[in-house]
């Protein structure tokens, strides 16, 4: 019986989890979500069963962290008089695709999560249903609806 050093888990799954976090909570909060996910994972790692799917396990943790972050953000949100027409898409080059996040942000939370876990993390709908709750079919439908909206809004944004 051998155990993988946690460094190898970070190396193999870190970039994919970052993509998932950016898709689910957006570029601003993604690094906090990633950090909290991997810190929790490190804490629980010695007790992870040998046959566990590490990728799905990490997405499960990231999902809980994303919910915490979204709630915290809602609590600290301050109403503004004028909503800007369009959020800035400028920023540091590593800050992800602003247009894509703008389109993702318009999706209901559940749809955005399901789209990210399937299209970014590559998880099957059966696993996604376990993470988000609900049935496999419901997860599949939410992803289809989310992608339909996303393709319409994001394509529009991409080709003005």
């Amino acid at each position, binding site marked *: 019986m051998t155990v993988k*050093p946690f*460094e190898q888990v970070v190396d193999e799954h870190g970039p994919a989890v*970052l993509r998932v976090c950016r898709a689910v909570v957006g570029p601003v909060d993604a690094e906090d979500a*990633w950090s909290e996910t991997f810190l929790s994972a*490190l804490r629980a790692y010695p007790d992870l069963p040998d046959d566990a799917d590490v990728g799905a396990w990490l997405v499960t943790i990231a999902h809980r962290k994303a919910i915490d972050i979204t709630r915290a953000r809602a609590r600290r949100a301050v109403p503004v008089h004028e909503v800007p027409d369009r959020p800035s898409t400028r920023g540091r080059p*590593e800050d992800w695709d602003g247009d*894509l996040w703008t*389109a993702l942000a318009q999706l209901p939370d559940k749809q955005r999560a399901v789209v990210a876990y399937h299209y970014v993390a590559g998880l099957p709908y059966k696993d996604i249903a376990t993470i988000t709750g609900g049935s496999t079919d419901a997860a599949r439908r939410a992803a289809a609806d989310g992608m339909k909206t996303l*393709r319409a809004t994001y394509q529009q944004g991409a080709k003005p």
Partner: protein
Amino acid sequence: MTHNPFDSLPEVDEPTTRRLHARLVSTATQEGLLDIAYRTLDSPVGPLLLATTTTGLIRVAFERQDHNATLTSLATLISPRVLHAPAKLDPVARQLDEYFAGTRHHFDLPLDFRLSKGFRRAVLTHLPAIHYGTTESYAQVATAAGSPKAVRAVGSACATNPLPLIVPCHRVVRSDGSYGQYAGGETAKHTLLTLEATQAKTQQH
């Protein structure tokens, strides 16, 4: 309609990944979750893997001992909470650099001997008493460790030394004066003993 809007995104974002890794090391340390920190160090005897626990240095491995396999074994035997955290090994790297430069003749580092038990551990505890630039035979070490007949056991204690270089098993040679085997290879043993002999001589004059 097969277009996936996520396809255009890069698979790996290097600068962010590095920054997040550093942040993980730092928060894991604060929370007491970093059980084993490691780094590699280039040396005249090839790349060395250095690993430390919160107690002290636990493992030094030569390249021929397979660094990945060594880390897997540490994860299995000690704790899987293993991260690449070079800064935690700065003092070790510095003392090894000084040793290879010939300016350091003994190491002053906290050590974690958990990987070695019983007679093997008794042998390793004796080894630092063999002075820089000198050697002892396997038989002499067996006597010093309290079991004059355990010459072979001394050989296996040296072969499985988890802390080569720091615990100087390279100073144990055959009774006929030939080098004998070494975890880092016979060439590495030759390099180390030549370095030490040269430095010790220079100091005498």
